[in-house]
Each structure stands twice: as structure tokens, then as C-alpha cells.
């Protein structure tokens, strides 16, 4: 699982039948300090997230599990909205 910020949404009328009614959001993965880290991606939403929120998401075949018993073809799904996170400063 990874932290990300929701930075946009995708509209697709023609899509796999198992995706009808699901929200697709553009994610920017984040480093621990909140900076953008890595490539943007599109994920399904299972928690009601919106643009501007910090979330965490899961990749891989587990991404379909939140919709069980439905099996949408997804490789990334938002599974939580982050209220806040805290990084302990490392001692040097």
C-alpha cells in the first residue's frame, strides 16, 4: 500500500461492464514527507475519496478485493482516506 494524493478524475463512457458506476481517480503517489514521488496512475475508489484528499491505495490483484463478490478489472484501488500521518525524525 502507498500514500497518494487525489489530483484528478477520469471520465470514460465506454468501459468494461464490471466498471459501470465506479469512480476512477488520478493519483499522485507521495513520499513520506508528502512530496510527489513516482508516476501518476488511475485507481478505482472504494471509500468515497475526492480530488485534493490524501489517500492510500493497494496495487495488484488485491485491488479487486474491496468490491467482492464483484471482480472489476483493476490493478489499483483506493482503500482509505488519510486523516494525517506522522514521520518520526531520524536521529543522526
Amino acid at each position, binding site marked *: 500500500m502507498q500514500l497518494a494524493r487525489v489530483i484528478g478524475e477520469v471520465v470514460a463512457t465506454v*468501459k468494461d461492464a464490471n466498471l459501470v458506476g465506479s469512480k476512477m481517480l488520478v493519483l499522485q503517489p507521495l513520499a513520506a514527507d508528502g512530496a510527489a514521488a513516482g508516476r501518476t496512475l488511475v485507481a478505482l475508489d472504494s471509500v468515497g475519496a475526492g480530488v485534493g484528499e490524501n489517500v492510500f491505495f493497494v496495487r495488484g490483484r488485491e*485491488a479487486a478485493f474491496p468490491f467482492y463478490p464483484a471482480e472489476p478489472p*483493476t490493478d489499483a484501488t483506493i482503500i482509505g482516506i488519510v486523516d494525517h500521518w506522522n514521520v518520526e525524525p531520524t536521529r543522526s
Partner: protein
Amino acid sequence: MQLARVVGTVVATQKNPKLEGAKLMLVQPLSLDDRPRGTALLAIDSVGAGVGEKVLVVIEGKAAGQALGRKAAAVDAAIIGIVDAVDYRDDE
């Protein structure tokens, strides 16, 4: 899932039996500003996408198999939606 542009079709007579009848497309992953990102890859198409269209590509084996409607198919990428629009915030 990744945003991508369909850049071509692929024809293969000799192939794994599980791929019989599957439409193979060559897709070029895109960044949010529509620039090519990374190398083009092969994806099966389950939504009727055409060359030149912007699509959503799922890059994960089980999800791709679900899009194809076959279990244990030797596929790892599938087009699962045709993108109408992407709205995103560019304040990162």
C-alpha cells in the same frame, strides 16, 4: 491503471490458444499532459477501442484475464475503458 494512446494493432496467427479471438493492440502509456511515457506495450482490448483513442489500461494479470473473460489466460495487460476526459489539478 494507466492512461495510454492506442498506437497500433497487432496480428499474430500463431499464438497461445487462450488468446484465440482476442484483439491485440499496441498502446503507448501517457503522462497526464498527453506526452508518451515509457515503452509501448501490448494489451488485449475488451471495449472496442480504435487506433488513436485515449484509453485506460490495466496492467495486472488477473484483471486482464477478467477483462478477457477467461481464467488463467496468459495476458498481463488489457484496455478496460475509452477515456472521454481527464480533469486534474496541476498544482504539484
